[in-house]
């Protein structure tokens, strides 16, 4: 087999288009949890990501480094989030501040129900979505793995649906692959698996289920070796995407021999 028989997936052959922009990487890396900006920068570079999430917090003159400058010098787009918001009102204000501060209309909308699970509050999430879409935002909605809610968010005009695989920071992977598949099968906007990824096989599974991209933070930033895990995630996402496009074989209840039965040596025939 020569090289032309093994297609490479890249932005040209398999573009990831979200909110009208083409990205070359289907891995979106969050910046939360990194032990230092130097470690974060190294992980970002290795991951190949073009888009990364940031939180919006009080400015401090004594702040330790500037994550915004770090992203700018590495040509990584910032996707601000509304992490920490429990109400639509707070999330809308945070989004408006983010748009002003970072000069982007993209917002990862998180409206959390409680501190213990960090799962989205569906009612506040939907309310905030309606307000932000009307205000011209490109809303990336962090949502539960509920196909019905995902459908409602899509109808409300979100730019991407971001279902949780499992609770934020839990590393439990994708607890309900069937729901993620259902969301994907009904989506007309990109589906980005968000939250719960623990290791590279989780990221690969998300892509094999048909997700358009994966967003993860803790799995890399809290790994023992963050840059090495960033490389693993980069490759896991690529492998999962390729497998999805290649088309997996159907699952069977019984074995199916891959070697032919014709031409078997006579003495062995009948022994099986």
């Amino acid at each position, binding site marked *: 087999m020569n090289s032309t028989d093994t297609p490479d997936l890249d932005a040209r052959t398999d573009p990831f288009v979200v909110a009208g922009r083409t990205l070359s990487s289907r891995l979106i890396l969050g910046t939360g949890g*990194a032990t230092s900006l130097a470690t974060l920068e190294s992980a970002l570079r290795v991951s190949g990501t073009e888009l990364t999430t940031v939180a919006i917090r009080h400015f401090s003159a004594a702040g330790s480094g500037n994550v915004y400058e770090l992203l700018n010098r590495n040509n990584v787009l910032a996707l601000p989030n509304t992490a920490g918001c429990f109400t639509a009102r707070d999330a809308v204000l945070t989004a408006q501040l983010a748009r002003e501060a970072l000069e982007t209309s993209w917002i990862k909308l998180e409206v959390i129900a409680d501190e213990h699970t960090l799962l989205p509050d569906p009612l506040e999430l939907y309310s905030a979505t309606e307000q932000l879409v009307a205000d011209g935002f490109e809303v990336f909605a962090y949502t539960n793995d509920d196909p019905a809610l995902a459908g409602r968010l899509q109808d409300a005009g979100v730019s991407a649906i971001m279902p949780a695989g499992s609770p934020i920071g839990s590393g439990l992977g994708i607890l309900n692959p069937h729901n993620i598949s259902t969301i994907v099968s009904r989506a007309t906007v990109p589906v980005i698996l968000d939250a719960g990824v623990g290791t590279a096989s989780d990221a690969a599974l998300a892509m094999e289920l048909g997700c358009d991209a994966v967003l993860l933070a803790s799995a890399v930033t809290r790994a023992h070796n963050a840059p090495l895990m960033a490389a693993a995630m980069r490759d896991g996402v690529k492998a999962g995407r390729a497998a999805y496009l290649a088309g997996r074989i159907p699952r069977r209840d019984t074995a199916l021999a891959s070697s032919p039965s014709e031409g078997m040596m006579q003495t062995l025939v009948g022994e099986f």
Partner: protein
Amino acid sequence: MTSISITVNSQPVQIDAGLTLREFISSHIGKDLDSESKAVDGSKLGLAAALDGVVVPRSSWNTRTLKDGQSIEIVTAAQGG
């Protein structure tokens, strides 16, 4: 000069009366800002401000004079998500 009391990122602060939001933020962050509130040194500020819970666009910082009792939130990007 008369001073007024405001709240900046949840902390009480005394400032001179008559300062605009642009003048206050310029001194708070230690950067010179032009009349459009862009950094004179050409760097991206990466900041936003809200006055009493309402976002004030950067282009309006120069026209908003701070009043006694007002609350300012100044925010920027931080690691997260």
